[in-house]
């Protein structure tokens, strides 16, 4: 099993970091930061975007491009991981290293628990995604829950099927739809990621313009991506 020596350099590092932060915080006055942009957004967000959850309006309207960037970061990370994992290193002993599966098979409780959890996780994920503009939550969080929903059965039954092809399709189309919604904004309103469909009335499920659509796209993309990644990591190595 993997063990390691005590990480004294790491502790030193932490100590240095602590010193550094103390130095920083000594001069920083908490509680009275000049929240210029923050306050301005608090004032106008609900009116401009129609989202009851200001965080969602910041993430997907005011800073939609950042979110697109973050989505791409996740995608790049997953792709990079796949690239690294999918390649057998040339400089090894040559033969594909067979995975030694040392874990015991999942027991009855785990299997049944997984079966029970699956629909609940699915619904929870969908809820978190779709109510992102109303309540805390949104695409990233909900996507993570969706990924868990698909991964847990795999954990319980490694042989259970997971349709990677579908996952790829969902992932690609969801990611593309985010960009396409942005481009549609460009074509329609003249601004990239401009809100479409009108703001609606604040607090309704069908409100806040294109924010719910974007949440959905993010949730599907994150969910399928992470599920694929986890299953790839868990399952046997590709050859």
């Amino acid at each position, binding site marked *: 099993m993997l063990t390691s020596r005590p990480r004294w350099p790491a502790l030193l590092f932490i100590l240095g970091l602590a010193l550094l932060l103390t130095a920083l915080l000594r001069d920083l006055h908490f509680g009275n930061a000049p929240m210029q942009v923050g306050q301005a957004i608090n004032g106008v967000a609900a009116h401009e975007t129609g989202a009851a959850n200001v965080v969602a309006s910041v993430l997907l309207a005011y800073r939609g491009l950042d979110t697109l960037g973050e989505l791409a970061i996740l995608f790049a990370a997953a792709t*990079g991981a796949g690239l690294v994992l999918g390649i057998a290193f040339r400089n090894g002993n040559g033969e594909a290293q067979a995975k030694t599966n040392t874990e015991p098979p999942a027991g009855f409780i785990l299997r049944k628990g997984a079966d029970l959890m699956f629909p609940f996780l699915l619904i929870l994920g969908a809820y978190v995604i779709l109510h992102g503009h109303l309540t805390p939550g949104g695409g990233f969080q909900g996507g993570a829950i969706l990924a868990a929903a698909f991964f847990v059965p795999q954990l319980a039954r490694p042989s259970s099927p997971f349709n990677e092809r579908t996952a790829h399709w969902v992932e690609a189309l969801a990611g593309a739809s985010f960009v396409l919604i942005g481009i549609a904004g460009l074509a329609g309103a003249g601004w990239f990621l401009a809100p479409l469909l009108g703001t609606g009335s604040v607090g309704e499920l069908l409100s806040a313009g294109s924010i719910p659509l974007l949440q959905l796209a993010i949730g599907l993309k994150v969910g399928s991506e992470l599920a694929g990644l986890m299953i790839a990591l868990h399952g046997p190595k590709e050859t």
Partner: protein
Amino acid sequence: MNASVLMIALPLLAAFLLPLTGPLARWVGPFAAALNIALGISLWQTVAQEGPSVVVMGGFAAPLGIVFRVDTLAVLFATALAALVLILWPRTSADPRRESALLLILLAAGCGLAFSGDLFNLFVFYELIAVASYGLVAASRERLAAAAGLRYLVLSALGSAFALLGIGLVYALAGTLNLADLSRHADALNSPLGLAAFALMLLGFGVKAELFPVNAWVAEVYSTATARTTALLAGGVSKLALLIVLHLVLLVYAQPAALSLLLTLGLLSIVSGQFAGYRAADLPRMLAYSSIAQLGMIAAAFSVSGEAGVLAGLALALHHLIVKPALFLVGDGWPKCVDSLAGLGRAEPWRAALFVLLALSLLGIPPLPGFWAKLLLLKALLGMGEPAWNLAAAVVLLGTAIEGAYLLRVLQTLFRGTTNAKPATFGGALPAGVLGVALLLVMLAATPVGGALQRAAQQAADVPAYVADTLGGSPQ
């Protein structure tokens, strides 16, 4: 102007859709890059006619929303990066689909980095570039590359964390992250804490910009990753990281202390890089160290306030963007050890001649373009009229002399003796040749190119216009 957004959106769209394209996958990437070049050229014309402008994301005006500033400088960098990506597009790859996706993401993020006028948005794109480049580095099928890539990842992540801390501090102090808005509130950052934030960002972004103490990954990664990845990192990515620093010192941190800090790091990069290159025994490492020093020169140029510094840094950056990738590509496939290069000059005369041409331009031998860049740099440094910057000119002089000593050693070795080695197939022939021809074209067209760079520098250095364009002219 909306073409600037499309330069980001389209490659991202292509990257997301790549898994679905089936047999067309290998054409999607080059096509997207070519499309980006076309968009860049059209933007270039628009900017030339109408002057710089501002694009607002989602119709939310600055400082609440994210804005893109489209000026000559940004268009130049975005187009150059697209061209570099297209030229360096890998022909063979172990996993073409994933690698293409990463390259497309890198392209999109690079364009975003060039255009964005918002500090946090810049950070997002910087991080995106970082993540994409880890994958590309590790894609080399060498075990050493994986190790180097891992170390690169750790250091880069650490650097990003510090940069983020710096950005957080800026937000805490000034209450805004829009660069133009920050420029208005620059006073709030003119304190030890504000300067500390700058130092954190400088060191954080410095990891990619190969600035002195945080560049220990450079030699290791460049000598193990594939030549094309190395070329992309050394040629394109590092410049974009420095571009963030340029935005910061131009708009927000025009204070002498910040400029001195940047200058100091730049000079240390020059000295350490050139001397380490002097002792380097293998070619990719030598080129990597030279790259560190060259980027140090660009940093030193950016530490000169005003148009002269921007112009010099821009010229150096674009020159290095052409030359260094080509040098890495030419060296690809040759034995790594410099002493084993003996006789290759006779075995492969054209390739060696290309190497000579590029090395001479790197040294700044007239009439090659590198000379103009170096002249501009020295002029900018001496134009400051301050002792530290005069010293910087002396350091540049010393550094280039050392660089000359080691590059000449390579040239010397190439043409000494004979070799029995058969000329290897020159995988990088096409891209290196294209870059070499580009260099010669720039030399012949020095007059118009110089004029364009002057326009770009003038626009970039005009801070009041930038602020007015971003905050004043747009709907509130």
